[in-house]
C-alpha cells in the first residue's frame, strides 16, 4: 500500500510501486486531466506538482510519492481561476488542448518562482512542454498576462 495525497485527498494505492504516477492518477484514481504523451519525459503532457515541483508523472514511480503531496490540473484551482488558467482563456491558447494540462502546470511553477518573466525566461521555463498544434506564441502572451494578473492580485481583464 502506498499512501499519497492528490489534490488534498488521501489515497491508499494498492499497486506495483514501480507503476508510474501517471497511470496511478489516470487508471486507479480516475483523474484524467493529466495526459499521457510520450512516456519518457520528453513532452510534458503529464506534468503534475509533487510538493510544488513540476514533475513528469510518466517517469515518477509510485514509490517516490509515498506520503507526498501531489496536485494535478484538476486541483490547481477550485474554479478554473488560477491566473494561468484565466490567462489561457483570455488569450485563447488551446487548440486541441491535449498538452495544456501540462503546459498550465509548468507555467504555474514558472510564475511562482519568477513573477515577472520576460520572453527568454518563459522559453527557458516552458521548453519542456511540446505542443503539436503550435500554440507557443499564445503561451508566451498568456504567461505575461497571468503575471500581470498575479501582480494585480487577481484577474486583470
Amino acid at each position: 500500500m502506498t499512501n499519497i495525497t492528490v489534490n488534498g485527498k488521501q489515497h491508499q494505492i494498492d499497486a506495483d510501486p514501480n507503476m508510474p504516477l501517471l497511470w496511478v492518477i489516470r487508471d486507479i484514481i480516475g483523474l484524467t486531466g493529466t495526459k499521457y504523451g510520450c512516456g519518457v519525459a520528453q513532452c510534458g503532457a503529464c506534468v503534475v506538482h509533487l510538493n510544488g515541483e513540476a514533475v513528469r508523472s510518466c517517469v515518477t514511480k509510485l514509490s517516490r510519492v509515498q506520503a507526498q503531496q501531489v496536485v494535478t490540473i484538476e486541483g490547481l484551482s477550485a474554479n478554473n481561476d488560477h491566473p494561468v488558467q484565466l490567462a489561457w482563456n483570455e488569450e485563447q491558447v488551446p487548440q486541441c488542448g491535449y498538452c495544456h494540462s501540462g503546459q498550465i502546470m509548468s507555467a504555474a511553477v514558472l510564475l511562482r518562482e519568477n513573477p515577472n518573466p520576460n520572453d527568454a525566461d518563459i522559453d527557458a521555463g516552458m521548453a519542456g512542454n511540446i505542443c503539436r498544434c503550435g500554440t507557443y506564441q499564445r503561451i508566451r502572451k498568456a504567461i505575461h498576462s497571468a503575471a500581470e494578473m498575479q501582480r494585480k492580485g487577481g484577474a486583470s481583464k
Partner: protein
Amino acid sequence: MKKQGTNKSNYGSTLRAMAVIGLLLTVIGIMAFGVNNSDTPKVGAESPLPVVKKDSIASVKAFKQVYTVLTSARCMNCHPSGNIPLQGDDSHLHTMSPQRGIDGKGIYAMKCANCHQAINTPGLHTPPGNPNWHLPPANMKMVFQGRTPHQLAKQLIDPKQNGNKDFKKLIAHADDGLVLSGWNPGEGRTLPPMSYAAFKKAWITWLSTGAYAPKGK
C-alpha cells in the same frame, strides 16, 4: 560492469602501496591547493589519503587518461560550455534546453529532478537517474566541453574554479555519487572509455604526483 565495492577494494590496495613511497608536500604553483596534515587522511570510508610525490611525467600521463574520461559524453554532457546540458553519445544539446540555474539543479518547471529520478528510468532514451542529479552551479561551472588537456588540468585544481576544493576534496570527488553514475548511465548509453577503477587510479595518480598539466594551450 563491476560493482562499486569491488572497485573500491582494488583501488584501496593500490593506494596503500602508493602511500608507502611518499612524502607529503605542500605544493605551490601548479598545485594551487593546500593539504592540511591534521585532517583525517581518509577518503570515503576506507581509502587513506595518498601522499603527494611530484613526478611530472607520471602526472601528465595519468591526466591524459583522466582527460579521455572527463571529455567522454558521460562526464562532459553535464559539464557543458553553455548553460544547457548535453545529451547522448553525440553530446547534442539537451532537446528541451533545460537551464543550469544558480544551484545547477535547473529552473522553474525545468528542474533536473522533475525528470531525473533517484535511479535510472528503464528503457532506451529515458532519463538516467541519481538522487542528486545536477550540473555544476552557476558560480563554478567547471566546463569540460571544449577544454584542452592543459586548460582542463589547470582548471580542475584552481580553487577559484573548482568550488574551493583542496587536494583532499578533489580526491574525495572521485567517490561522488554523480561521478560514479557515469558508469551506470542507463540503457543504450556508451560507458566512459575506461573502468571506474582505472579512472580513479589515474585521477589519484595525477593529483598525488603533483597534478601537472600537459603542455600546450
